Structure formats: C-alpha cells, structure tokens
C-alpha cells in the first residue's frame, strides 16, 4: 500500500515538476514592473539584498528539505515492523539543539548585515555621488557626509513632491516652479533626468496610497498627516511603470503612473514646455466648440488649463494632456498597444516606448470622459465606468455647487468636440 502511495505521489508530482521547469524558462524577469530588473541604485541595493536572502534560503532549503526527504524514505515503516521491539525513546539532544540554534543565528547574521546597510542607504539621498561598487554603496554616509546633507539636497538633488489622491498622483517640482499653486503641476506622468538623485516627498490628500516604481525603488506609503520621503535615481533612459500599492478604495487597481527617465538636456526642454501655456485654438473648428463646452459642462470647476482656464485646482492639470502617453490615472494607454509590444520585443526592453497615437488618444478621451456617468453610449445606457467611483461622477462635489445632472450630459457630438479640443493641448 505504501509503495502504491509513492507511485501515486510520483504521478502527481511529475507533471507538476515539469510545469515548474517549463515555468522557469517562461518566467520573464524583465517584464514592465519587474523588481528583478533594477534600473537605479535604490532598486539595485534592494535587489542585491533580496538575492542574498534568496541564496541563503536556497541553501537552507536544499539542506533541510534534503534531510527531510532522506528521513522520510529511509525511516519509512516496513512490513514486519509491527513485531519489532519498541524504538528506544529519547527526548532530544541538547548538543544538537544548541548547534542548530547557533547555526540559524549565524545564517541570519549573513542577511542581517546587508539588510542594515541597505536600510540606511535607502532612507536618505546619499550626500556624495552614488558609488558603483556594492560594498561602498552600503556605507554612503561616512566621512562627514551627514553635515552637508541639507546643503547637498538643496544644491544637487532634484526634489519632487508627490501627492496621492483617489485615484491618481499629482507631481510637483518645487525647485523648478512646477507646482499646483502655480498651476503647473503634472498628473500621473513625471519626468526625471538620467543619473540624477531625486528626492521624493510623499503626501496624501485623502487615504493611504503607496508609491512604487519597481524598477527604480521599492515602495513607500503616502500617509495622510505624515511626511514621508524616498529617493530614486534612473540610470537608464526609458519609460518606467509604477502603480499604487496600498489598497485605497474602489478603483485602487486603476491607480497607475509613469515616469520617464530622459537625458538632462531633454529634461530641461520638458521643464520649459511645462511652463508654456496652452496655445490658441483655431476659430471655427470643432476644438473651439469643445473649448466652450469645457466651461459650460463645468469641467473647468476642477481642471486647470493654463492659458485658457485657471480655476480648477482639485483635478489633474490638463494643460499638456495630449502630450501624455497615458490617461485616467495611467490606466488607459495612449500608445498603439501592438506597436508598443513590437517595440518592446524588438529592443528586448520594456522601457522603450513608442510615441502617442492620436487615434488611440482620442478614443481614450471619449471613452474616459463618456464613461463617468456624464454620457450615454449608442444603446442609450450609461457607458461602463473606466474608474468606478471617480470624482467625475457628478455626485457630492457638484451637488454642493448646486449643479444639476442635465447640465453635464454630453451628446456624442459634444464629446467628439471636447476630445478634439483636448487633443490640441500638446
């Protein structure tokens, strides 16, 4: 009966093992949000520590697991055991116990040391330039660096404020004048120069969110009522994917964001562009009609478009909405998905990105605005929510403003005009 059992287990286990083998070859370590493909020093240090734990655990697993398998096979009951004399009872061996406890503590020290170093390394922007060798990377703050810390941060480090909202992120560059107060904030997609340490101040305006760009750094939470910070540095140019990692309500899954790491010159150009106002809308076009609708349908209450409308401060800034590669908390991708996948495969790199596809962008705009309870689809029913519970629903906030439902309904034509208008906001 026991041998039958073993063959049964073997039968079950064989395909399973085969699957694991197949899986390892299929598991891609460089997918868009992979933590195993660090592209910056913070993520690299975290990855190194992780790999330390992996190796330790693999060794222990083989050791203990091997012993267990050996013991189970070697000491299995055999026919005739029933009549065998009783096994001599012992209650343990103090030497073995002490030895094993000591060994376990020793094993833990192996991971404790890199862990401690990495904790301090990740906590603050290093005052000196980031060293490349692993060991020195773990002790970045020796030799008086601490005293100069504030100065260094001010002079050398780019500072970005991240504000979490249900369910999108707002990015501000206080050193560069790109702030919400100045009507220059950037929603959901932000840009950093390559090779520069960036200090990120994390704030929330409602519930707890968490800021996570797996390839650049592990996550830190945005706690309401609390100052949190982290730092990142992008060492390779590219398009990085990030996501809110703390459950924050209905549309938590739709709370994504992107970061572009660009060459410093590109970054300066980008900053300049953010400071420009939206251009004139050509008279007599659909876009002009859309611009009027933007005010008439109360979008203007929350959204800011510098140069056109300046009232809104709650919702994402739309001044350069058409230049962004994503929409709706980065849930809707404005790039052509097929072209994007082809490019990723061609370059073997998920950070490479194609440009915005205008048709996709327009379709996304119509889908997004139309979905939020303000328009009906072709069948006359409200279109399905892209992000359930989002503030474009005209409940509370608009009721307070005394606005009625009818003012915010869009016809298909109106929606088209509005999308055309937004497409002009490069």
């Amino acid at each position, binding site marked *: 009966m026991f041998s039958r059992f073993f063959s049964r287990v073997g039968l079950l286990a064989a395909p399973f093992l085969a699957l694991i083998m197949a899986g390892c070859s299929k598991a891609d370590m460089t997918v868009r949000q992979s933590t195993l493909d660090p592209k910056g020093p913070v993520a690299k240090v975290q990855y190194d520590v992780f790999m330390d734990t992996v190796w330790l655990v693999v060794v222990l697993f083989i050791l203990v697991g091997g012993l267990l398998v050996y013991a189970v096979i070697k000491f299995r009951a055999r026919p005739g055991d029933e009549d065998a004399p009783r096994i001599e009872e012992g209650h343990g061996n103090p030497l073995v116990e002490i030895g094993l406890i000591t060994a376990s503590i020793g094993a833990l020290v192996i991971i404790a040391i890199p862990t401690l170093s990495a904790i301090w390394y990740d906590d603050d922007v290093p005052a000196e330039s980031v060293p490349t060798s692993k060991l020195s990377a773990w002790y970045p703050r020796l030799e008086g660096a601490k005293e100069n810390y504030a100065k260094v941060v001010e002079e050398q480090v780019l500072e970005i404020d991240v504000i979490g909202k249900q369910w999108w992120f707002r990015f501000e560059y206080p050193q560069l004048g790109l702030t919400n107060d100045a009507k220059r904030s950037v929603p959901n997609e932000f840009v950093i120069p390559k090779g520069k340490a960036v200090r990120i101040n994390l*704030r929330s305006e409602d519930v707890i969110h968490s800021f996570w760009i797996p390839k650049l750094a592990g996550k830190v939470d945005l706690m*309401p*009522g*609390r*100052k949190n910070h982290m730092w990142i540095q992008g060492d390779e140019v590219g398009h990085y994917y990030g996501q809110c990692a703390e459950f924050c309500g209905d549309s938590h899954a739709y709370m994504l964001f992107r970061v572009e790491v660009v060459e410093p010159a590109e970054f300066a150009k980008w900053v300049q562009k953010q400071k420009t106002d939206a251009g004139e809308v050509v008279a007599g076009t659909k876009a002009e009609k859309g611009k009027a609708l933007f005010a008439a349908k109360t979008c203007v209450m929350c959204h800011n478009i510098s140069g056109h409308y300046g009232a809104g401060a709650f919702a994402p800034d739309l001044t350069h909405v058409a230049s962004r590669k994503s929409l709706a908390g980065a849930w809707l991708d404005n790039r052509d998905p097929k072209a994007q996948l082809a490019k990723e495969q061609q370059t073997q790199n998920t950070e490479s990105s194609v440009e915005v596809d205008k048709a996709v962008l327009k379709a996304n705009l119509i889908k997004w605005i139309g979905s939020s309870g303000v328009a009906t689809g072709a069948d006359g029913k409200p279109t399905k929510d892209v992000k359930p519970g989002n503030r474009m629903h005209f409940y509370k906030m608009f009721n307070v403003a005394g606005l009625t439902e009818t003012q915010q309904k869009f016809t298909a034509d109106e929606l088209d005009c509005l999308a055309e208008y937004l497409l002009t906001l490069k």
Partner: protein
Amino acid sequence: MSSSPEAAPSQEFLIEETRRYHHFITLALWLAVVTGAEIVLIFLPIPMPVVLTILSLMSAGKFFAVILWFMHLIYDKRLLFWIFVAALMLTFATFSALLALFSVDVLDPKWIA
C-alpha cells in the same frame, strides 16, 4: 460533595483576617497621604524631570500597594502575581515602544495648521 455553607472559620483564620484588616487601614491612610503629596508636588518649584520621576514612582507605588494588599497578591499564590506582572510588563514594553515610534517631526504641517 455535600456541604454546610455556614461552616465557622477557624480561629487562626480570624486572627489572620484581623491582622489584614489593620494592614488595610494603614494602607488606606498611606494612599491618601501619597495622593495628597502628589497634588502638592506638581505645584512645587522643582525641576520637571525630578517631579516626573517622583510622580512615576509614587503612582507605581500606589499601584503595587493596591495590588499586593487590597488585591491579596501578597497572600496568594505566586502564580497570580506573575500572570499579572507579566501582562503588565508586556503592556509597558509594547506601548513604550509605540510612543517612541512617534515623534513630532514626522507630522505633515499641512494637515495640522
């Protein structure tokens, strides 16, 4: 399992109870005195850390006095004392750590003002 609920207590037991009775009265007096001293102490011009130490010691003293005599722990089995003190120590350690984990400089002033 039959019993006589009104079985008379033994003579030694009565003597012991009377002795405790006097302990209780003394202790009650001490508790009153210490409480009075605490109230006076906070208004005396003594450096704050000193007052704080004395206050902590006084309230800890009162605390353990009540536990040991009024709550009979000094007469009872040791086990009860250790059950309670173990929980007390765990509470103290846990919440000291919790208090230490918070400091004013982690607050976001935007939310406070």
